């Protein structure tokens, strides 16, 4: 067992499954000799050769479309889109084909494949390198959208994503690629897709988050504890299909719910979670549902990035407001 970062966990999970299953291939821009711009595929081409770790020309729609063709023929592609901001040329292939092939052919053609992309803000990157557009994908029936928040989850969920019989969009919160290390045993054990994880148990308020924002959420929960407020923290992990039952169960227990997300507020995953709570657990609520999110603005360039990103203070402020509600 060794302490590894989130990006190393992604790498280790891919290596494990490529060793274990000869049909798994990695492809994308710069994934070969360079090992990916964030080093997610570091060393994989050396180990598995250029037939299984494939450098592609610079064309995102091609990466998705070719992966679809390969998956239909029994190859399991793990395709990298270098940054989520560049996934849009592939959006057509993802939405119109990847999500639909099983349904369209009545199960005749299925697409076990993964599209990975680093996403989210906080690394002082140029334009289009920092957005959180997970809701665009979570809205599409037929897709699974997974977002790990830490190294253990990244390892287990990546394995599950590769083994999943359906296509998975795997979004990696790049701000936390290297900020924490976890002891992760490289034993091929997966985490289930389609489950929320209760990271911290509490009785007064449920804090619901995913990806990088879990880190601010956990810090806030710690501070709230010092103030005598017991916060339960849920890592959504699979944003589609959403495990709403775990969230509802928690909210019914605590009576208070708050969502923390980096993405803009309107029409977001937070909106969906809030609506589900309002529909199904409103009678348990002791206070209105709270949301801390990015603003409904274009993601700013990095000089204003800090002003955009939800902070521990913003989470605390909203949590206290909810707690004080009468």
């Amino acid at each position, binding site marked *: 067992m060794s302490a590894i970062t989130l990006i190393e966990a992604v790498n280790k999970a891919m290596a494990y499954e490529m060793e274990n299953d000869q049909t798994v*291939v990695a492809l994308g821009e710069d994934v070969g000799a360079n090992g990916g711009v964030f080093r997610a595929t570091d060393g994989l081409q050396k180990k598995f050769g250029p*037939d299984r770790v494939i450098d*592609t*020309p610079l*064309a995102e*729609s*091609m990466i*998705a*479309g*070719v*992966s*679809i*063709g*390969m*998956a*239909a*023929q*029994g*190859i399991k592609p793990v395709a990298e889109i270098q940054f989520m901001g560049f996934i849009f*040329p592939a959006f*057509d*292939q993802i939405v*119109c*084909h990847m999500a639909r*092939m*099983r*349904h*369209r*052919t*009545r*199960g*005749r*053609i*299925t697409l076990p494949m993964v599209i990975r992309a680093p996403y989210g803000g906080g690394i002082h990157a140029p334009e289009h390198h920092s957005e959180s557009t997970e809701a665009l994908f979570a809205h599409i*029936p*037929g897709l*699974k959208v997974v977002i790990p928040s830490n190294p253990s989850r990244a390892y287990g969920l990546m394995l599950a994503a590769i083994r*999943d*019989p*359906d296509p998975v969009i795997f979004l990696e919160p790049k701000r936390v690629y290297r900020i924490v290390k976890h002891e992760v045993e490289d034993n091929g054990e997966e985490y289930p897709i*389609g489950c929320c994880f209760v990271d911290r148990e509490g009785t007064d308020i449920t804090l619901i988050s995913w990806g990088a924002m879990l880190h601010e959420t956990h810090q806030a929960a710690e501070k709230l504890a010092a103030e005598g407020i017991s916060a339960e923290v849920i890592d959504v992990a699979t944003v589609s*299909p*959403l*495990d*709403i*039952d775990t969230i509802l169960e928690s909210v019914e227990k605590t009576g208070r719910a708050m969502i923390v997300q980096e993405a803009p507020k309107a029409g977001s995953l937070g909106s969906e979670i809030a609506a589900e709570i309002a529909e199904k657990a409103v009678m348990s609520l002791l206070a209105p549902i709270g949301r801390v999110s990015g603003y409904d603005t274009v993601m700013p360039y990095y000089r204003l990035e800090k002003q955009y990103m939800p902070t521990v203070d913003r989470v605390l402020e909203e949590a206290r407001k909810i707690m004080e509600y009468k």
Partner: protein
Amino acid sequence: MTTVAKFDIKYTQYIDQDGKPTSKKLPKLAKDIDTLKTLYRSMLRIRTLDTKAYALQRTGKMGTYPAALGQEAIGVGFGSALNKEDVLVPYYRGQAAMVEHGVTMEEVLLYWGGDERGSDYQHAKEDFPIAVPIATQCLHAAGVAKAMQLKGEKRCVATEIGEGGTSEGDFYEAINVAGIWKLPVVFFINNNQWAISVPSEIQTACETYAQKAIAAGIEAVQVDGNDIVAVREAAEKAYEKARKGGGATLIECISLRLCDHTTADDASRYRPEGELDEGWKAEPILRLRKYLESMGEWDDEQEEALKAELAKEVQEAVDNYLNTAPDKPEAMFDYLYSELPARTMEQRQYAIDKANNKGAK
């Protein structure tokens, strides 16, 4: 200044519109009367199907349908040249190639009749369903070819696209990667002169569509798409090259759409006067008939017998289609994922109850 690269595009035609050979060096196929008769039958069958589908749409028994009148030689030509184990990745007007490769006419009708079961091919198990977003299928074809290459198989992939579709990014991305990776895939451009209402001068500044292959580093071929001998010959050569590891080919087949874009279109709004009259003189079925007649291999009696036989065959497919009841409402849910998510199960039950009119108080 020095010339660092030079290219040319060759055009092939073996039989002209009067059914006369245009070359003394004809391929074997031009003398293979049995095969020519089979191809003739296939072309006439697709025309019969298209004509019937049009009538079904006009009488409210079919949704929007894209007939391919005048382009039968393209799909029948390259579809019939595929081996069973090869894979076809069709485009939306691809019924000729699809049926040649084992998709049933009933499945074609079911698909355009608004039923997903039309893409659950019972025979062409590995063939792709129709991709409606233009040019997207080219990338699937490249991916299927990549998988064959990785698995070391001696199979190939054929895909079709309209000439308008070659303006799309996915087309360029597909031929580009097919060139780099030397993929066993053959791209057929069905150049029927019209992308709905848009003619070639608005679609491209190129002299030919075939030459787009040059920028991708793959072989460019142009044939008379109304000459099934030329289409099939070019397809056979390209497939053989692909299966042997020689890489991809782009084949432009020049034809003319002798019908509206779909049943929802009215080509009289944009088609120049006289084009159809000329087009019907050059169409592929008449041409092959003239060729066969000139050799004493076809006559009116055979023509009438074949037409009657095909009418019966197509009618059977139509009856099967019309007698297929719509799928159950839960079919909306049952193929989305390998396992339906818990929260969607609720909606599934609701849809079933609503359809059964339960709880409708």
